[in-house]
């Protein structure tokens, strides 16, 4: 495989912001002109990931962004609570350990 392809795949896997910007352009890559506050934006993005049953790297990226935007651990967990009726318990149960890992919380679950 060409090095540039390897580089692109690696950057996509960790949600490199520069790649995201290049793919989506200013329309969806930059600040939301009429959006809610940055914290709510980050929490809504996390909701999309939970609904999609996303991967660890995505959860880490999203939770880190939410915490950086001022969200508390409780608010991050609140996203899972709020989504349970929408996405179902299976998705929430799958997401909870990933969210816990992203906020640095050991759930003590069996490996």
């Amino acid at each position: 495989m060409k090095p540039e392809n390897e580089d692109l795949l690696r950057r996509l896997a960790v949600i490199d912001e520069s790649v995201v910007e290049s793919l989506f352009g200013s329309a969806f890559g930059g600040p939301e002109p009429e959006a809610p506050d940055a914290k709510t934006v980050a929490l809504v993005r996390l909701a999309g990931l939970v609904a999609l049953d996303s991967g660890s790297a995505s959860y880490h990226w999203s939770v880190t962004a939410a915490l950086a935007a001022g969200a508390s651990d409780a608010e991050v967990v609140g996203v899972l609570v709020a989504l349970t009726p929408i996405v179902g318990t299976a998705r929430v149960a799958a997401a909870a350990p990933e969210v816990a890992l992203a906020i640095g919380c050991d759930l003590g679950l069996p490996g």
Partner: protein
Amino acid sequence: MVPERPAQAGVTRRTSGAAHTRDRLRRLAGAEAGTVGQSPGAPCGVERYGLDERAAALVRLGALVALHAAPASYRGGVEHALAAGASVDDVVATLTIVARTVGLARVVAAAPDLALALGYDIDRALEALDDPHAGRRPLR
């Protein structure tokens, strides 16, 4: 770039509220017997778990877009969001907020249903472009 991970598994980063957070996440993960995916108090007790009703409503809308939900779900979600204090701008912004994570295909599919839930008929608007005499229903 993705920031450094705040902590590795097995390391509790914070002390304040950390026990409650861990307990809630364990219950959501189904670690406690008979509580698979259980969210105590949900859906009525969202505020007890850190989110205000407006944020919770917008979070749910984002999930509906990701799930490619039915029009009836958007109607209910939008009505709830507006009733909880979200603006029309907030509701429309959920599309652009989740676009990067769910992809443009989902957002494009969701836009007409979300618009209709806001009282804006995109099909009628497009027809009006072809026929200047056709009516256009404004946003609420």
